[in-house]
């Protein structure tokens, strides 16, 4: 039997009821949302369910929506069912003041570096991550550069040589 978006949606609503929301399918890729407290439960269900079998974490990243109060940071999981070759997208949202999200490292070992990267650029605090420190930027950096909190040109930087840029 082919694994269609409707079946996935049905399985998820059977299990989690109203907790999973905002189902949509841009370009045919099923996308949905759950409260951040449930992220591991949903991921585990997607992993272990015999029909769903989403066992491969393709990508994990964050998005910053500065105007969406209380839901400024979205953590996005891209999952792949390798048996049926079906992909889905799963999002959890968190406030920027308390960017704590449970770490998926216990379920998907591949989440380790991706969560470090997401922490590095967006400051999402992955609770339970074994080694949550910066991975790409210099260790001394004291801000999260991909958050939309800064003017396009960061006026506080002192490493720029204005003469080189004709300013």
């Amino acid at each position, binding site marked *: 039997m082919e694994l269609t978006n409707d079946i996935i949606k049905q399985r998820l609503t059977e299990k989690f009821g109203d907790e999973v929301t905002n189902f949509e399918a841009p370009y045919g890729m099923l996308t949905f949302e759950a409260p951040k407290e449930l992220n591991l439960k949903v991921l585990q269900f997607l992993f272990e369910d015999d029909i769903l079998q989403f066992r491969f974490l393709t990508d994990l990243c964050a998005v910053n929506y500065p105007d969406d109060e209380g839901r400024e940071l979205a953590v996005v999981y891209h999952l792949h069912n390798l048996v049926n070759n079906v992909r889905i997208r799963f999002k959890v949202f968190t406030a920027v003041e308390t960017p704590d999200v449970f770490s998926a490292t216990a379920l998907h070992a591949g989440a380790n570096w991706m969560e470090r990267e997401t922490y590095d650029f967006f400051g999402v605090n992955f609770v339970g991550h074994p080694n949550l420190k910066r991975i*790409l*930027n*210099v260790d001394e*950096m004291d801000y999260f*550069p991909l958050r939309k909190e800064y003017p396009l*040109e*960061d006026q506080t*930087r002192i*490493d*720029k*040589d204005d003469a*080189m*840029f004709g300013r």
Partner: protein
Amino acid sequence: MARPVQYNVKNEGGKPLQIVGAPEGFNGDGFFTTKLSNVVGLARKNSIWPLPFATSCCGIEFMATMASHYDLSRFGAERVGFSPRQCDLLMVMGTIAKKMGPVLRQVYLQMAEPRWVLSVGACASSGGIFDTYSVLQGIDQIIPVDVYVPGCPPRPEAIIDGFMKIQELVGKESIRRRNGEKYKQLMESYGIQ
């Protein structure tokens, strides 16, 4: 027909064969005197061992410069060393991220004196188009640079031009320069002993 070996060593057939001329000095019957600096400079400048530190697009131009078409070996620099201990010239080509900064600095520190630095391309010289939080805005913030080559990327001719400028510097450098007070100050301004 195979090319006879003497083609390369004798000036047959009117091919211009260039040999570096002697430095200024006094010439007599069976003797020649000149400054030690000149002789050392002459030897050094025509046998530079470059250490390529190629991180991005400019590195590709360097590969062209090194390869047969542009052929940096015409300038006595075919021996590209990949250990900083052996090399005289650090050629930095490409974007240096801030995280790479300490690595570049360490490579520079591992080189023995006398050492020169050629900064190739806009990125290495000033950060280039990467006016951003993660890129070092010019390698001269962490190590002293002798010659800058502008361009994004500079053509191989430009890299060779920069290299010849380095040769000029090397040839003219006094053998006392590296023990001098001024040089010490320069090193201290970079926090290098």
